[in-house]
């Protein structure tokens, strides 16, 4: 039995303290909503810079991993959500973890993993259990560090990097489980989520996100060969309901990506959310957002958990704005659809919504040899940068893009491989920050920006923090989208902004590429 060090017991993730940001999403719900309101719509115009620090990614002496030493110099590219515990921020850079003093912005320790060649998608951050910190490396290792010194405790290989797996997820700590995942969709491989023991790193359970033989979802594939090449990468930190004891894991797109002729069927559990019991890894339910997807529309977005009254009845809900342009509200106890609605205009790839809430695909808008003019393009109507939900306004905030492209299928072989298609032409009509009324699916307000998907934070002070794609970190009024304050950073905000109390004051923290900025009231 582990002796708690008072550092971050799992209960402090379930009930976050005001002076912490204890997990990627801030709490298990994924709302990116903070109850802090020292800063509010009335006084946010007084927000000022507390400190800025440029993150150094040059390796020090604290190193691990089997690969070559990374080149020194170079700039950080911060895409994680920093965690804050006891006055120390924990951030990740490619194959690195840094502990930063939250009062001064200065580095406390740094750990560098020397990785083998792998695709560097971007790391979402660490998970913390007591005194132990966990992160995934690009080359598919799970590494555990001592939180005080940054020294490595152990590392475990989760997947074979030679098979072109790449890992980026921030591990989610739930009770005594470290929940991790791997992704890979360049070569056609099967992906998975796992729970690992925080003490030893050993596997507790393993869940294939492409349904293998024995799983009821197997019948949505024509054969095992298709499953073994099926994709469904785990690229995004899940959410968790402690009362229902369910972890909600969103999955990636199917492989081969744009040609579906060797994988007839819905291809479970690609482009889905799966609800798993975190103790056993058994699936309670699933919902597939894009059945038999052929547009690279993965579901690597936040399944946000919130409660609301629907038709007079309090309901436990889950909402996800999917890359394909559809907004889904589900009952998170059983996966039943409450509402499905487009959150951008112009979607032309589906014929309608079925009674079960799923889209009815138009087969003529799958990639065609002669080209199919489709909205959205493969980048989609939104992406991984996280949305936010504010229970005070009842609005789901998301950065959006309205785009068109001509999808071409380029591999008509009975056994296509890899991307198997391409897209040409078209363009972006507009990019907007939008607020969706979760009860109706209607757009409550929208604000033009120069960026599509973006990482957001909303607070009890009626604020929504985001950016405009032109380097400005902005506080919008959460009720109507009016910009109330902004600061021009050296680069566009690149990660999830977080907020916390420290020494009696509320801080905002955001990264602009290589720099970390902390703001507070005067």
């Amino acid at each position, binding site marked *: 039995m582990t002796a708690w060090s008072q550092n971050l017991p799992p209960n402090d993730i379930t009930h976050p303290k005001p002076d912490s940001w204890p997990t990627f999403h801030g709490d298990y719900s994924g709302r990116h909503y903070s109850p802090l309101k020292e800063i509010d719509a009335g006084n946010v115009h007084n927000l000022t810079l507390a400190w800025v620090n440029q993150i150094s990614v040059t390796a020090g002496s604290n190193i691990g991993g089997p690969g070559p030493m990374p080149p020194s110099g170079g700039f950080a590219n911060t895409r994680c959500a920093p965690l804050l515990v006891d006055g120390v921020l924990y951030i990740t850079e490619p194959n690195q973890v840094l502990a930063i003093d939250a009062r001064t912005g200065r580095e406390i320790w740094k750990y560098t993993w020397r990785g083998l*060649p792998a695709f560097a998608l971007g790391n979402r951050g660490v998970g913390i259990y007591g005194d132990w910190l966990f992160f995934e490396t690009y080359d598919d290792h799970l590494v555990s560090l001592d939180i005080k010194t940054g020294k490595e405790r152990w590392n475990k290989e989760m997947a074979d990097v030679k098979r072109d797996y790449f890992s980026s997820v921030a591990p989610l700590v739930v009770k005594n489980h470290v929940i991790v995942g791997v992704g890979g969709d360049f070569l056609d491989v099967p992906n998975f989520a796992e729970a690992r023991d925080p003490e030893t790193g050993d596997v507790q359970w393993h869940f294939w996100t492409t349904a293998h033989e024995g799983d009821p979802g197997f019948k949505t594939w024509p054969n095992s060969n298709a499953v073994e090449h099926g994709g469904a990468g785990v690229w995004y930190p899940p959410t968790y309901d402690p009362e229902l004891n369910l972890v909600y894991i969103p999955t990636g797109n199917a492989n081969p990506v744009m040609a579906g002729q060797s994988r007839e069927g819905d291809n479970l559990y690609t482009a889905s959310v799966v609800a798993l019991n975190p103790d056993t890894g058994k699936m309670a339910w699933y919902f597939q957002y894009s059945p038999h997807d052929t547009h690279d529309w993965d579901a690597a977005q936040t399944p946000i958990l919130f409660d609301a009254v629907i038709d007079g009845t309090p309901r436990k809900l889950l909402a996800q704005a999917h890359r394909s342009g559809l907004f889904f509200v589900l009952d998170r106890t059983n996966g039943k659809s409450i509402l499905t609605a487009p959150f951008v205009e112009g979607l032309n790839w589906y014929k309608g919504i079925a009674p079960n809430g799923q889209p009815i695909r138009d087969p003529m808008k799958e990639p065609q040899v002669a080209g199919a003019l489709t909205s959205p393009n493969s980048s989609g109507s939104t992406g991984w940068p996280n949305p936010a939900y504010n229970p005070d306004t009842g609005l789901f905030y998301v950065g959006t893009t309205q785009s068109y492209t*001509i999808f071409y299928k380029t591999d008509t*072989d009975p*056994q296509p*491989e*890899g*991307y198997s298609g391409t897209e040409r*032409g078209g*363009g972006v*009509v507009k990019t907007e920050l939008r607020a969706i009324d979760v009860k109706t699916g209607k757009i409550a307000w929208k604000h033009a920006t120069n960026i599509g998907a973006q990482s957001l934070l909303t607070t009890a002070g009626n604020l929504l923090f985001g950016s405009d794609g032109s380097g400005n970190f902005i506080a919008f009024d959460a009720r109507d989208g009016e910009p109330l304050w902004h600061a021009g950073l050296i680069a566009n905000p690149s990660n999830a902004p977080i907020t916390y109390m420290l020494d009696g004051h509320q801080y905002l923290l955001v990264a602009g590429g290589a720099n970390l900025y902390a703001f507070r009231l005067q």
Partner: protein
Amino acid sequence: MRIDMLALVHLKKTVAFVGGVALVTLIANVQAQPPAAQPPAGRGGTGGRGGGRGSRFKIYPRDAVDRGLPAYNSTCGYCHGDRGKGGKAGPDLIASVVTLHDEDGVQLAKFVRGPEHSKVVKIDASDSQIGDIAAYLHSRVVYSSGRGDVHLSEVLVGDAKAGEIYFNGAGGCNKCHSPTGDLKGVGGKYDPAVLQETLVMPRRGRGGFGRGAADTSPTARYATVTLPSGDSFKGAPLRVTDFDVTLRLADGSTRTWARNHGVPRVEITDPLQAHVDIMTKLSDTDMHNLTAYLATLK
């Protein structure tokens, strides 16, 4: 393409790599693969996808890959199928742990001569022959995992006559375009895929809309800034945010105004608005027909 399995049943277990005629005719249907791709540049712009991928896979010399293709076909092809994708008797050799852990054919030779493979079929091939096969398989890994090297075919499926009718009718294209004027000879100048994407949205640049680009062509988007005084300025929008607007004016100079709650007003005009509208409404049938029609304008 399917391997003739009846022929396979009659084969003896020991297979010699002889490049012999009998073996070659068995797998005569196996198609030559297009030249192996160099690692692509990737899509980019969407959070770093596509960056730095090429170094993951070793690129083998062209001549080894070219020798490796017929060597693969005659030694491995009838079990492992067309281009290494897997056949009825042998698995996929591309997303294969054996291939992916091989370098220069060394591990591949060891595996193929080892107990697991030998109990299925005994391969007699020299180190250099296996090295060539390995080079070919590694080129297949690069091709399969790549996203840039694609070949568009059969884009001309539409009805050129119907396209002409649409051009002069419901499409309204003849309001701005003429087959004997601006479109004269386009069918001879551009390949069909280029014709198709151009008729949908002719402007290139970031996002296909030249967003942020200082494009001074007549089809470029331009901005009009109107001050509270009533003065207005027109230019290329270099930067437009809630807090500032920067134009490049006709004389080449750059001017920025601070903005506050929408003042000064900024209006963006797109000379290609008709194409934006087309893009949002055009059916695939009309698109294919228009492409076929434009392709006739030689």
